[in-house]
């Protein structure tokens, strides 16, 4: 949704601190990374968005601890170009490299390795934070409350300028991948429960357009970084996009027919079982980055993402959600299914032990808003939650149920920002920071 705001481009911590001071601009301030958010967390209509691209320094890697200090405006793409030749990989990556370090912390992003390695914050040693009450460096020991509120805090506890993170040493830039195809959701989930612990990375792509015996059929890909003798030495740089979508597609290009046909072709194209395949980092981790401007396929009205997590005890909710979507005739592309390991202390950090399902839904079907409202009710009742980083439409009434530690988050945010200078359209829409106290 297009809104208008001022843009600030501070180049020093002092300039940034001025923006958050009582003499700074009014009507709200929020940091912005690469502008790729699915929803409105980095928008603040009528306020000021802060462009952090000047905070772009990258330190040397500490050979002993594998730690590196990175500016908040640095993208994972840029960081990978820097560290892959040195034999390192980022500890956690989402499905795109077009995410900044600041954004990775604000959303406490997860990747295909959450069940083994946890979320991004698990690998953050310290962060430099500019808040309206001052500039500080926070760690797990130095103001742990603020550290954890900032992890997943959607930028509402201050503006991160740099972070020290621990990298993963790798022997090659290739990934050894096992691919298996499963006839329905039960089989996909059983295979994941059975074998995910044997892989660092695991993800299933699930078809939400089929019903009956093939409901939720899917392709499971699992793997780990290949040893040096299996792949090229770690000097290869991931390539950029090889294909581009040149213009906005007409509305309705992605409809039930075209998506059903795509999902069918995609399922047939996957091997029934292929063990030990070798894939590049780009292919395995960042498939979307291979198609520039892929979002244009959705036409002018775009799409919404719906990603939820439910505990193991409520694993049946995954099937119920897919059945409801199929029954409602709302078209949905392939869904991404993952197992989550234990969550962390972050009151707004999304991952919690169990399952997570992410859906891409084209905006347009008149029934879609109500279908998703019903899913919100289902997920909340199951003890689950919605991923704020991808949300653009959650029913605000569920926020406290989904994030039981919300009160703790609000207390910490008010401690470092008592005048509520930090806000975003997501905050306004969901009332994340809560009612003001007298």
């Amino acid at each position, binding site marked *: *949704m*297009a*809104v*208008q705001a001022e843009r600030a481009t501070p180049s020093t911590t002092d300039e940034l601190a001025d923006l958050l001071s009582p003499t700074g601009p009014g009507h709200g301030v929020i940091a912005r990374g690469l502008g790729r958010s699915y929803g409105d967390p980095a928008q603040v209509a009528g306020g000021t968005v802060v462009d952090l691209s000047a905070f772009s320094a990258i330190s040397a890697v500490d050979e002993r601890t594998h730690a590196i200090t990175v500016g908040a405006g640095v993208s994972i793409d840029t960081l990978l170009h820097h560290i892959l030749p040195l034999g390192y990989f980022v500890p956690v990556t989402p499905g795109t490299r077009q995410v900044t370090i600041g954004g990775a912390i604000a959303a406490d992003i997860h990747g295909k390795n959450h069940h083994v390695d946890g979320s991004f914050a698990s690998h953050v040693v310290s962060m430099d934070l500019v808040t309206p009450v001052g500039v500080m460096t926070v760690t797990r020991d130095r103001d742990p409350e603020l550290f954890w509120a900032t992890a997943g805090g959607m930028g509402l506890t201050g503006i991160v300028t740099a972070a020290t993170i621990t990298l993963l040493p790798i022997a090659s830039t290739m990934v050894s991948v096992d691919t298996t195809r499963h006839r329905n959701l039960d089989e996909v989930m059983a295979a994941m429960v059975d074998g995910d612990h044997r892989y660092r990375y695991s993800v299933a792509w699930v078809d939400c357009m089929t019903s009956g015996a093939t409901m939720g059929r899917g392709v499971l890909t699992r793997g780990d970084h290949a040893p040096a003798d299996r792949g090229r030495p770690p000097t290869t740089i991931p390539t950029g996009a090889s294909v581009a979508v040149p213009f906005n597609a007409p509305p309705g290009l992605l409809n039930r027919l075209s998506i059903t046909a795509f999902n069918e072709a995609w399922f047939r194209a996957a091997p029934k079982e292929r063990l030990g395949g070798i894939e590049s980092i780009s292919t395995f981790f960042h498939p979307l980055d291979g198609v520039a401007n892929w979002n244009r396929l959705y036409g002018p009205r775009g799409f919404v993402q719906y990603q939820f997590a439910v505990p193991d005890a409520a694993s049946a909710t995954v099937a119920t959600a897919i059945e409801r979507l199929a029954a409602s005739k709302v078209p949905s592309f392939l869904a991404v299914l993952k197992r989550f390991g234990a969550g962390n202390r972050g009151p707004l950090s999304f991952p919690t032990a169990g399952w997570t399902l992410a859906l891409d839904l084209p*905006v347009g079907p008149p029934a879609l*808003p109500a279908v998703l409202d019903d899913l919100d009710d289902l997920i909340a009742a199951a003890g689950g939650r919605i991923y704020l980083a991808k949300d*653009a*439409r959650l029913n605000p009434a569920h926020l406290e149920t989904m994030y039981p530690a919300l009160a703790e988050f609000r207390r910490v945010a008010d401690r470092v920002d008592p005048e509520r200078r930090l806000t975003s359209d997501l905050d306004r829409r969901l009332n994340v920071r809560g009612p003001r106290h007298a």
Partner: protein
Amino acid sequence: MRDAFGQPQTAILFGGTSEIGLAIVDRLAAARLRHVVLVGRNPSALEDAASALQARSVTATVVLADAADAASATDAVDQAFGALGAPCDLVIMAVGLLGDQAADDDSPERTATMFVVNTAWPAAVLAGCRAALVAQGTGQILVLSSVAALRTRRANYTYGAGKQGLDGFTLGLAESVRGTGVTVHLIRPGFVTTKMTGHLSPAPFSTTAPAVAEVAVTAVMKGTPVAYAPGILRYVFLVLRHLPSALWRKLPG
């Protein structure tokens, strides 16, 4: 803040007891609406409408203003935005006075009032809302015009001409806010059976307040600049506007 589907959380309804206006608010209340300001003239009718909304967990605040007094527009805007105390997602302009053409025909006072209520006051209020929404960097304006604005006729030319002024003003307003984050949506209903028209026999393609509300809410969610209720009137009036006067005069309704 409205969501990705364009569903507003906050709204101001000018014409706070308008049947169509309240039908729109009613539909929004079933989605994300949590606070609405009702601006109008009749305190007891406004309080009744507010209570009905409160019962549905929507905070409803009443602001008194008289659209027959053009000078009250500035105050009405200030009070309405002040009562909301948060960014306003949607402004609904539903003020209108059908009048009594036979009585209006020879009355300078009545004719002046018709143009104040149907044109001058709404346009002045919209100018105030424009400033407030542009400062917010976001917001939508929904204006209820009428197909009567497309071509005036003997039976209601004073009303039709008043709506014509508002209709044209709204189209210009829409152009003026391009690129500001604010959008403007114009609805042109046909004959709507409401308390305002209860004494008249319905014209062809007549519709109801809930049906107009459906068209209006869809236009806001999809970002449609101009919508008709019912939709077929867009094409009916494409023809009617160009009928020779001798034929136009003889049409029913």
